[in-house]
């Protein structure tokens, strides 16, 4: 069964707006990671947040983690056309397996 579940499944926003995606998971984790996948390509690692961290930034990306609610959010600020992609959360479980959610398809409108 899937560990992480992203929400929403699909999101369309205007260029320049902020995009927020959420991820919920079920079991204890070492860390949570976010990946981007452009159409027809492999996944690219964006950011990792450890279980003892609450917020992390990387450029236009901001990730939060709430272990009490078993949830995370990814915020992309000032979106660009190049941000159009699918975004996946992945939970690094205590058994060393990394389990992916089904992804959020983000479409940036010009």
């Amino acid at each position: 069964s899937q560990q992480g579940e992203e929400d929403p499944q699909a999101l369309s926003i205007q260029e320049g707006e902020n995009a927020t995606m959420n991820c919920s998971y079920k079991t204890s984790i070492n860390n949570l990671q976010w990946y981007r996948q452009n159409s027809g390509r492999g996944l690219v690692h964006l950011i990792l947040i450890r279980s003892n961290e609450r917020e992390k930034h990387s450029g236009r990306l901001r990730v939060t983690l709430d272990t009490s609610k078993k949830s995370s959010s990814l915020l992309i600020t000032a979106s660009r056309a190049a941000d159009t992609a699918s975004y996946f959360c992945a939970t690094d479980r205590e058994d060393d397996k990394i389990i992916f959610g089904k992804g959020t398809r983000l479409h940036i409108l010009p």
Partner: protein
Amino acid sequence: DAGITQSPRHKVTETGTPVTLRCHQTENHRYMYWYRQDPGHGLRLIHYSYGVKDTDKGEVSDGYSVSRSKTEDFLLTLESATSSQTSVYFCATRGGGANYGYTFGSGTRLTVV
């Protein structure tokens, strides 16, 4: 995708034939993984490896086997391909233990007819 090469990139095969997909890495990463990606299912772990000759099953291992005789190569074999194994297969590596992200290959698109 630098450092990880998957081959072939595309393959069409017939039902019942064996198929081997190759993942080659130049990163000297200890951990290697095979995932399949299907619409509506995201990425699902097939098999993974902690090191040479050290492999284990993932979520969807039935019908698949793996081998890792060298650090740099991780082979995925479909013993007798079925149409349900039509998918995009991704190899990934991880250099450290916990708190390291994956590096993914570009994928192999396999069609079983």
